[in-house]
């Protein structure tokens, strides 16, 4: 059974977003997503300073099973990427919400987070997909 931490916000496309104390937003893919993908073998991250629109292409995750696009859940500027994934993509499987984060943005408007799904609503989306 996948984890759905309550404190995060979720996109239907299976990314999570966390508003940090410093006002930045950290993004990764969900436990449900990593489980569906299987072992992750490569992650293509966005370039620093890229301006991403909400729902815009932010990279690709390649697993043993498939290649999947990653979308930014909110609009903003990329201020940091998780370089550790380059050598250790398995962190996405082992720790999708902590060590396996993808990138951080300086959001244009933190109110956009409100438009994302709660843990409960996202869990419902996942359950519907698997039926």
């Amino acid at each position, binding site marked *: 059974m996948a984890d759905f931490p309550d404190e995060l916000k979720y996109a239907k496309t299976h990314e999570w977003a966390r508003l940090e104390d410093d006002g930045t937003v950290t993004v990764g893919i969900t436990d449900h997503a990593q489980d569906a993908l*299987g*072992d992750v*073998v*490569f992650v*293509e991250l966005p370039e620093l300073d890229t301006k991403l629109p909400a729902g815009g292409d932010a990279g*690709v995750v*390649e697993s*043993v*099973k*498939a*290649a999947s696009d990653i979308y930014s859940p909110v609009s903003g500027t990329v201020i940091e990427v998780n370089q550790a994934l380059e050598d250790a993509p*398995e962190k996405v*499987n082992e720790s999708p919400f902590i060590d396996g984060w993808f990138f951080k943005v300086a959001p244009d408007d933190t109110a956009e987070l409100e438009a994302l799904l709660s843990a409960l609503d996202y869990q419902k989306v996942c359950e519907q997909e698997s039926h």
Partner: protein
Amino acid sequence: MGLKTPLHQQHVQCGAKIVDFGGWDMPVHYGSQIEEHHKVRRDAGMFDVSHMTVLTITGPGSESLLVELLANDIRKLPRSGKALYSAMLNEHGGVVDDLIVYANPDEYLMVVNCATRDKDLAWINTRAKDFDCVVEEHPDRAIVAVQGPNAISAVKAVVGDETGKLIASLKVFQGGYSGAWFIARTGYTGERGVEIILPGDEVPGLWEALSLQGVAPIGLGARDTLRLEAGMNLYGSDMDEGTSPFESNMGGTVVMDNHEFIGKAALQRQISEGIPRQLVGVIMKERGVLRAHYPVFCEGLLVGELTSGAFSPTLGYSIALARVSSDVLTPSSEKAALTVQIRDKQVAVTQVKHPFVRNGKQSYKTQ
């Protein structure tokens, strides 16, 4: 809900992710496909392949039936359990299925693919009417493959003395019976190991005994990356009824001389007219993963597609089989510079002579 093998319970208990495979509920992995892959290359793993179809052919006309059905020549095998890998062709020279047949003293024991079971049985039974033989399916038999450098010692540790002696006596690509168990030195991984065909009600005991020896269960996901590293074709991906064995890197399994078989005329035509496409190995050291159906280009021209592709856990980069136009492989020219389109990018790949991996190590040469 699909068909279940006698090991279904064991798979669920081991935390398998179950997927539909040709109508069967099969384990794709038990947690990490890559760890399972390494386990087979470095130690020992076991695969439940009981979904595959087991047939026996008996009676005085058996050999003649197989001479007609198979592109490889069954007559070259001594009846001592030697195994033959062959394509079974249609009249157009296309591959109906690929299979393994063991020439046992009193029977031919054959294992065919699960997804092709119905058409294979129909095809074989139609031809069998002309011969004095009996074709029987054995859905009550399970198959376990135990593969890896430590596989054979693990199996020996869980079977009786007599069976252990049998295993010790077998050559690679040979099998034999110990009671109701048929054990063969064959596999689909490029490692040492055996495949065991045994009564379904005895397979859970074998599985659990092997587990206590430290043999890990391996899912279909790792089975696919292991076979691809070993350069072995997968039916339905790398060849099918629309491709001849010559276009599928299976020319070495076709015997044309003094051998009349279904599809031979079409193959002769293909030889005289020229084989239009070839199946070749390619590698890509850039980050990314080659996958089936990605288009292949040579100097901007579409020349074929990948038939299988994966990240190779042993090599640490991506490998694939590509079916490409023979024009780009003419020996006189410099090696063609092939690229593969990965989403919207053209990425250079290097053509290599596969298998990519044998006995745990890189085995290909760049030509």
